[in-house]
Each structure stands twice: as C-alpha cells, then as structure tokens.
C-alpha cells in the first residue's frame, strides 16, 4: 500500500511536469504569434502582394510588431492587407508610416515593413489605412539588369581594346617606365624646391623691407612714416585748395567778363560786337597786307644794295 502511494506520487509528478511543458510550449508559441497580446487592426492597400499570406510578420524598423491577418482583393488591381499591430508598440508608429512588402532575408518569408514617416502625424488608430509602397518586382528589375549587363559588356570590351592599345604602343607606358624621365622629373622637382627656397628667402627679404618701411627706414619709409612731411603735405594740400578756390573765383569773374563781352559791353565787347569796327579792321588788315607786300619788295630791293649785299652773300654760303 505504501509503494502504491509512492507510485501515485511519481505519476502525479510525471503528469504535472508533462502538462507544465505542454503549457509552456503552447505559451511560447502563442507569444511569438502575438495571440496573447492585445493589438489593433490596421490595413494597407497594394497592387501586388507577391505571395503574402495571413500569419506573415509585420515589422517596424526591423522588429516584429504584429502579424498579417487577412489578404484579399478589393478591385482588379488593388489588394487589401489587414494586419494587427501590438498595442505595446503603437506609441512609436504614426499615421504617416509607410507600409511596404519585403522578404525575410533573400529567400525567406514575405513580410510587411513599416517605415516611420516624419513623425508629425497622430498615432496609429484602429482601422486606419496606411500609405503603401508597392513591392520591388524582381522580374522587372532583372529585365533592366539584363539591359545594363549588355551595355556593361560593350563598355568592358571597349575598355579592353583601349587597354590593349595602351599596352601595345608603349607610348604612355614608356612614359611611366622611363627612368630618365623619372630622374628628370626628380631633378625638376629638386629645382622647384630650390626655387621655392629662393622664393622663401625673397619673401623673407620682402618682409624685412616692409618691416623697415614700417620702422621708417629708407626714403619710402621716411616718406610714409615722417610726420613732419605729412604735415607739410597737408599744408600744401590746404594751399592748393585755396589756390583752386581763387581759381574758381577768377573763372567766375572770367565768366562775367565773357558775358559782358557777349553783350557788347566794354572796349573788347565793342570791338567784337560792332560790325563797323569789324569792317574797319578788315580794311586795316588788308592795308597791312599790302603794306607788308610793299615791305617785302623793299626788302628784296635792299638785298641788292651794297652794304646789305655782302651780308646776304655770306648768308647764302
């Protein structure tokens, strides 16, 4: 009888342990499938879901936040995907989040990726329909890739030709291989170095000179730094200004005079304006002209007269 009770205790332990593991297993499976979490239901529309199934994961920035609950067509090119999102995770998911369909790894299960938006919208709510990006269609991408590949092939062939030519002609390559060229380059670099050294010393001198100038050494320095001189220059400028002022006054007087002349006032004005005077003047000038002609005749005659004749002969020689 005692053995019997021990057996029953052992049986009890066996059953309890078995049931514990069963319940634990069911709990862990359920917790991964988000059955025991409270969640909200949201949806997104896609043109093509690429084989998404109910039960696939929903990820927000890579962490699992829910599962797909329903996938069905609502129009000929529109598929509605309903999925749950854990209430614990909802505080970071806003209404401007983007839903897209991706895969777990390269060949893994399909899943829905939620990418956060700007984060300025309200938090996700029950029944909200998220914006979506349609999935990358591998066949379309591959078609483009094929074109790219053929282009690449052409380009690489061309490149191969070019590199072959470069290798064959020894022109560019020789330049790289030539040791004399290299030594020349080296020498020129050495020269450059010397030159730059000289330039350095020149600039040093220059800086010394400017230093001297600053200290007032040499003529320019004196010029620049001599305060007496600058005073004198200042005085000169002041005098010059006075001069120009008086010039301005004189020119103002001149303008007055000219005005008067124009109006025919004063002797000069009379002279210029009076047409009679002009006529007389003309006559006088004509007389002077004829007088001058006579004078030149007289002079010619004078040349042939004895005391002057000798002089002109000398002059001629």
């Amino acid at each position, binding site marked *: 009888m005692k053995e019997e009770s021990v057996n029953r205790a052992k049986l009890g332990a066996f059953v309890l342990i*078995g049931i514990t593991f069963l319940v634990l*297993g069911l709990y862990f499976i359920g917790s991964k499938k988000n059955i025991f979490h409270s969640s909200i239901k949201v949806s997104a529309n896609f043109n093509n879901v690429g084989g998404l199934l109910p039960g696939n994961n929903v990820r927000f920035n890579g962490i699992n936040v829910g599962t797909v609950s329903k996938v069905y067509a609502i129009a000929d090119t529109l598929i509605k995907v309903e999925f749950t999102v854990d209430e614990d995770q909802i505080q970071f998911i806003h209404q401007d989040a983007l839903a897209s369909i991706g895969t777990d790894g390269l060949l893994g299960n399909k899943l829905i990726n939620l990418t956060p938006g700007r984060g300025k919208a309200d938090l996700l709510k029950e029944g909200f329909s998220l914006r979506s990006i349609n999935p990358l269609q591998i066949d379309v991408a591959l078609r483009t890739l094929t074109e790219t590949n053929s282009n690449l092939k052409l380009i690489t062939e061309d490149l191969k030709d070019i590199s072959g030519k470069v290798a064959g002609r020894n022109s560019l390559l020789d330049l790289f291989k030539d040791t004399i060229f290299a030594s020349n380059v080296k020498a020129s670099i050495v020269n450059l170095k010397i030159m730059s050294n000289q330039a350095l010393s020149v600039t040093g001198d220059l800086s010394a000179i400017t230093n001297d100038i600053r200290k007032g050494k040499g003529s320019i320095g004196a010029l620049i730094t001599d305060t007496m001189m600058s005073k004198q220059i200042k005085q000169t400028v002041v005098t010059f200004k006075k001069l120009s002022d008086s010039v301005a006054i004189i020119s103002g007087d001149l303008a007055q005079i000219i005005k008067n002349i124009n109006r025919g006032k004063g002797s000069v004005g009379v002279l210029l304006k009076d047409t009679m005077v002009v006529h007389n003047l003309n006559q006088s000038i004509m007389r002077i002209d004829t007088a001058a002609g006579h004078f030149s005749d007289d002079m010619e005659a004078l040349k042939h007269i004895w005391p002057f004749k000798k002089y002109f002969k000398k002059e001629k020689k």
Partner: protein
Amino acid sequence: MKSEAFKNLLLETGDLYYFVIRFFKECFRPRYEFAELLRQCYLIGNKTLPLVGLTGFIMGLVITIQSHPSMEAFGAQSWLPSVVSVSLVREIVPVITALICAGKIGSSIGAELGSMAVTEQIDAMEVSGTNPFKYLVVTRVFAAVLMLPLLIVLSDTIALYGSFLGINMKQVVSFHLFTNQIFLKLSFGDLLPSLIKALFFGFAIGIIGCFKGFYTRNGTQGVGRAANSAVVLSTFAVFIIDLVAAQIADIFHII
C-alpha cells in the same frame, strides 16, 4: 489455405471492430476502476519515460548532426534550430515515441492479458463479479491514450535539448537564441496535430495489445504469439495513423 488466411483476417478485423465498440460502451458506464487506471498510468507513463526520453534525446542530437552538413552546404546553419525543431515536433518525436511505446506497452499488455487468458484468470474474474473488460482493457487503453501525449511533450522537450547540444558541437548558439529561433518557427499547427495524433497512437497501441492478449488461445505458445503480433500490428497501426493524420492535416491546411 490462402482463403483460410483471408477468412482469418476478416474474422480478426470483425472481432477487433466489436472489441473497439465494446470498449466505448464499457468506458462510459459507471463503476470506474480509478486505482487500476492510475497504476496503469504509472506503468505506461513513468516506466516508459526513461526509454522514451533517451530515444528522444538521441534523435534530437542525431537529426541535428545529420542535418548540419546539408544546411552548411546552403550556408543556412542559422536555420538549423528552426528546421530541426519543426521536423522533430511534427513528425520524428511523436512517431519514435509511439514506436517505442508500441514495443514496450504493446508487448507487455499483450503478454500480460494473454497469460491471464490462458490461465483462465479472466474467466475467474468474471465469475468473482468483476468486469474483466472494464478492469483490464478499459484502464490500460485509457492509460495509454492519456499518457502518450504527455510522453510526447516530454520527449519533445528532451529532443530539443539534444538538438541544442548537437548544434553547439559545431557552432555556438546561446540557449536563449535557440529557444527564440525554435519558437519563432513553431506554431500551434505543428504542436497540436502531433498531440492529437498521439491520442490515436495511444488508443491503437492499447487496444491492439489488449485485443491480442484478451483473445489469446493455445497456451504459452499463444502468449508469445499474442505479444509478438501485438507489437507488429500496433507498430503498423502507428504508421497507418501517421499517414492518415498527415493527409488530414494537409487537407485542412494545418501548417
């Protein structure tokens, strides 16, 4: 001779059918043999656990080690825990456990009941007023049906631990990561069908062992034959049930 063998097959099938019907009639009638049920549960559950646990551990370890090279060829060693755990929980552990139980429980029930039948203890029991069917058959079958799922759950646990050790022979995976990976891939659809299947396995093992033992004839020779045929038939039944269960699970898309 051939027609006689065929006739025997038909007779046996018919007898088994009536035996099952009788079991269901008897098991719901009052006067339940609880003490005997618990004793049988202890014999089937506790006494089989070490054997089943060891088998499960070895299966978990071996399946992991054997899967490693092919998974490595795909560069998918990280998928090893998920893949191995799914195959262990869905198929390997339930079937291996059921086969071990068929060998151990089926033979012991068949031999025990067979020797009782041969020595006319069953008739004596009936005379003394105890219902032998209730006392012997219902308790054993019921114990097998109750204990098999529990054995499979424990064996699953031990097998997964064996798999954990097997994975850590070739790569380093922490226990936490391992449990995360297996429970990420496991679903109720993996565990529950295997447990429902286990109920049928237990029923088949118990009822076949009892049937073979209950109708044992021809003395000690018959006892040996009864034990033998109980093991063979119940092993066969386990595979048939497994096949049917797989088909049904496929029909209902229990993935």
